[in-house]
C-alpha cells in the first residue's frame, strides 16, 4: 500500500517543484471537411472541431481536480490547413478567413492554443502551400489562438531551400504585422526539419495525415522536479546523476500517462502518445538551464553545456520510455530562451549565444526556440539561420526547429516582454556577415547519403 513518504514526495513535487502536466492536446483530422466552397469548408471545420472538443477543457479540469495535479493547457491540433483548404482558398484573404474560423472555434471551446495552420513542404511547395505560407503574417496578426508551422526539410527528402528563403521573409513580415505587440506573432510561428506528426506542444503541433480521426496526446513537464532531485546528489558521480534523472523522469512520465489514459477514457477519444519533454516556464525554479547549473555549470552556455544537455536529454528518454510504451512527439529537453528564467539570465550576462544554442540543438529535442533578435536582421540572414538548423536535423535524423522573433524597432541591449508562459527575453546579437548569395540560390539541398537505407 502507498506510504506516507511517497504521498508527501508526490505532493511536494506538485506544490513546491512545479510538477504539472503541461498540455492535453486533442488531435482532430479535418480531411473529411475538405470542400471547394469556402463558406461550406469553414462551417464544416467549425462543426467538427466543436463536436469533438467541446468537453476537452471541462474534462481536463476534472482530471486535474481528482488527482490534485495541475494540467496547465488544453489545446487542439488539426490537419495541416494547406491540405484541407487548398481546394477552397484562392487568395490570402481566403486563408485568413479559415484562420479566423479556427480562432473562433478555439475561443468557443475555451482552449488556449490551436495548432495546425501548417504546410509540409520538405521537398516542394504546391500552389496551396505557397499561398498558405504567404498568408501566415496576416493570419497570426488577426487571430489570437492560432499557431502556424511549416516543415521545410527531412532526412528523407533534403531541405527545400526555396521555402527556407521564403520563411526568412515571412518571419520578418509576421514581426512587422504584429509590431504593436512586440512582434508577438513570431512566437506563434515555427519551422521544422523532421516535424513529428503527433507533437502536443505549441507552436508546432499539427495532426499528421497518418493519424486517426481524433487522438489524445499529452505533454508532461517537470524541470523543477529534476533540479530538486539533483540537489540531493550534489557532487556525486555521473552514474548517480544519471540514475537520479532517470528515476525522476519515470515518475513524471507516469503522471502524464495516467492523465492521458483518463482523458482518453472520459472523452472517448483514442490515446496517442505521451511526449516526455522537459518543458520549462518563466516561473522561478521551473528551468532547464537551472538543471544544467545544478550539474556543475556556472551558467548555461559555459563550456560543458552541450555535454550536460546531451546527458540530461538521454536520461530523460531512458526513464520516460520505461514509464510509457507509447512515447512520441518531441520527447527531450526544451531550451527556449524567453520561457526559461535560467536561459534568460545566461543570455543577459553573455554566457549564452545563438551559436552555442545551435550546438545545444544537436543533442536535445527541439531547436532555436523563442530567441529575440534585432528587428533589422536581414531576411536572408534569418533564412541562413533556418538553413543551418534544418541541416542539423536532416543530417542527424532528428527534429530541429526555429522560432526566432525579429522584434521590430528593437536592437541588442533591449528587452522584449511577451507575457505569460512566453516570458521575456533580451535581444540577442546575430552574426552580421552575409549569406545572401548562398540562400538566394534556387532549388533544394538533396537528402544526405545515410538516408538511402533501402
Amino acid at each position, binding site marked *: 500500500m*502507498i506510504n*506516507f513518504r*511517497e*504521498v*508527501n514526495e*508526490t505532493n511536494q513535487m506538485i506544490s513546491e517543484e512545479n510538477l504539472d502536466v503541461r498540455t492535453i492536446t486533442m488531435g482532430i483530422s479535418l480531411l473529411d471537411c475538405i470542400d471547394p466552397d469556402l463558406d461550406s469548408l469553414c462551417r464544416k471545420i467549425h462543426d467538427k472541431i466543436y463536436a469533438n472538443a467541446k468537453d476537452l477543457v471541462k474534462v481536463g479540469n476534472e482530471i486535474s481536480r481528482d488527482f*490534485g*495535479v495541475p494540467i496547465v493547457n488544453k489545446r487542439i491540433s488539426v490537419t495541416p490547413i494547406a491540405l484541407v483548404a487548398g481546394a477552397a482558398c484562392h487568395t490570402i484573404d481566403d486563408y485568413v478567413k479559415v484562420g479566423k474560423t479556427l480562432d473562433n472555434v478555439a475561443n468557443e471551446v475555451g482552449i488556449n492554443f490551436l495548432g495546425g495552420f501548417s504546410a509540409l513542404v520538405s521537398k516542394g511547395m504546391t500552389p496551396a502551400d505557397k499561398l498558405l505560407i504567404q498568408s501566415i503574417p496576416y493570419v497570426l496578426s488577426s487571430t489570437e489562438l492560432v499557431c502556424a508551422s511549416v516543415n521545410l526539410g527531412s532526412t528523407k527528402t533534403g531541405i527545400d531551400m526555396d521555402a527556407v528563403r521564403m520563411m526568412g521573409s515571412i518571419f520578418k513580415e509576421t514581426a512587422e504585422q504584429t509590431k504593436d505587440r512586440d512582434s508577438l506573432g513570431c512566437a506563434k510561428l515555427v519551422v521544422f526539419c523532421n516535424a513529428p506528426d503527433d507533437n502536443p506542444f505549441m507552436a508546432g503541433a499539427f495532426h499528421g495525415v497518418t493519424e486517426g480521426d481524433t487522438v489524445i496526446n499529452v505533454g508532461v513537464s517537470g524541470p523543477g522536479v529534476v533540479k530538486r532531485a539533483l540537489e540531493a546528489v550534489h557532487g556525486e558521480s555521473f552514474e548517480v546523476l544519471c540514475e537520479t534523472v532517470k528515476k525522476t523522469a519515470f515518475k513524471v512520465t507516469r*503522471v502524464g*500517462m495516467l492523465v492521458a489514459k483518463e482523458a482518453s477514457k472520459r472523452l472517448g477519444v483514442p490515446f496517442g502518445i505521451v511526449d516526455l519533454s522537459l518543458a520549462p516556464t518563466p516561473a522561478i525554479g521551473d528551468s532547464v538551464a537551472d538543471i544544467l547549473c545544478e550539474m556543475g555549470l556556472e551558467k548555461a552556455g559555459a563550456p560543458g553545456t552541450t555535454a550536460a544537455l546531451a546527458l540530461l536529454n538521454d536520461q530523460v528518454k531512458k526513464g520516460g520510455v520505461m514509464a510509457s510504451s507509447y512515447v512520441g512527439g518531441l520527447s527531450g529537453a526544451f531550451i527556449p530562451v524567453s520561457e526559461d528564467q535560467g536561459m534568460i539570465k545566461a543570455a543577459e550576462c553573455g554566457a549564452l549565444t545563438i551559436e552555442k544554442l545551435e550546438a545545444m540543438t544537436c543533442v536535445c529535442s527541439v531547436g532555436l526556440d523563442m530567441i529575440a533578435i534585432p528587428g533589422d536582421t536581414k531576411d536572408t540572414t534569418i533564412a541562413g539561420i533556418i538553413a543551418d538548423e534544418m541541416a542539423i536535423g536532416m543530417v542527424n535524423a532528428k527534429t530541429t526547429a526555429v522560432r526566432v522573433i525579429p522584434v521590430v524597432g528593437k536592437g541588442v541591449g533591449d528587452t522584449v516582454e511577451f507575457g505569460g508562459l512566453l516570458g521575456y527575453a533580451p535581444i540577442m546579437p546575430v552574426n552580421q556577415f552575409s549569406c545572401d548569395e548562398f540562400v538566394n540560390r534556387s532549388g533544394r539541398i538533396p537528402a544526405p547519403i545515410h538516408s538511402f537505407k533501402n
Partner: protein
Amino acid sequence: MQKAIITVVGKDTVGIIAKVCSYLAERNVNILDITQTIVSGYFNMMMIVDISGVQVDFGELQDELTDLGKTKIGVEIKCQKEEIFEEMHRL
C-alpha cells in the same frame, strides 16, 4: 472499492482526527489506514479511504474537506484519488 488519499497538514491542536473522522463518517467514507506524526509542532496525517459509498460528487467531497480544514480546524486538507500515487511509485 474506490480509494482516495487524504492528507492533513497544519499546526497541531486538540481534536483534528476526531473532526476529520466525524465528517468522513457522515459522508459514508470508510477509513482503511491512518498514519500520523507530529514534526516540530506540526501535525501531519495521511489517510487511505474508500469512497465507493459516498453519495456526493468527488469534487464536492474535496471542497467540503478543504473547507472543514480551513474554517473549523485551521489545517490544510487535501483529497486526491489514489491512482496518481500508485502510478508514480509502483511498477
